[in-house]
């Protein structure tokens, strides 16, 4: 039980470190937002589930935190992506040639 929890927490922290490195390495704002939203959601989920394994009596507050992260994180990133697109930012990578929005 304890080893599973510690391993999940470590995986979540690794996801956060990859997210921070990608935030520095990525070329433009859209890709930075991509890595700044998905991997942080996954990292928070893994850490919260690992802490639930280690301390089962805190399950109510921890599941509330996970629920609100799951609810609010895609909302803020979607609002921000729409705002950046309407502001006129352009992609630097060659991944998307035509404007699909």
């Amino acid at each position, binding site marked *: 039980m304890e080893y599973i929890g*510690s391993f999940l927490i470590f995986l979540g922290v*690794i996801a956060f470190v990859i997210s*921070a490195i990608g935030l520095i390495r990525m070329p433009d704002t859209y890709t930075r937002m991509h890595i700044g939203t998905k991997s942080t959601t996954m990292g928070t989920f893994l*850490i919260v589930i690992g*802490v639930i394994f280690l301390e089962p009596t805190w399950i109510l507050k921890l599941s509330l935190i996970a629920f*609100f992260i799951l609810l*609010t994180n895609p*909302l*803020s990133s979607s609002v921000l992506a729409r705002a950046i697109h309407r502001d006129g930012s352009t992609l630097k990578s060659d991944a998307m040639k035509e404007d699909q929005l």
Partner: protein
Amino acid sequence: MFEVSITLLSIALLLTLYRFIKTTTLADRVVAFDVLGIMSISLLVLLSLSFQREIYLDIALVLALIGFLTTTLFGRYIEKGL
């Protein structure tokens, strides 16, 4: 046992803070600020485990509840102005 995880998460937070300071556009800065908020939620959860204090989870819960409002407000500001 959790010291390694907390240290790695602090290093990730410092890297994000470097991105937050060393950038030119407003949108990049708002993205980095969003990531900083989510990372501090996870750091509070890990610190509550390390110090064995359940009260830190309340702060993390409040941050998870109202942290996205900043990003939404900045998105509205970038889109339409005040």
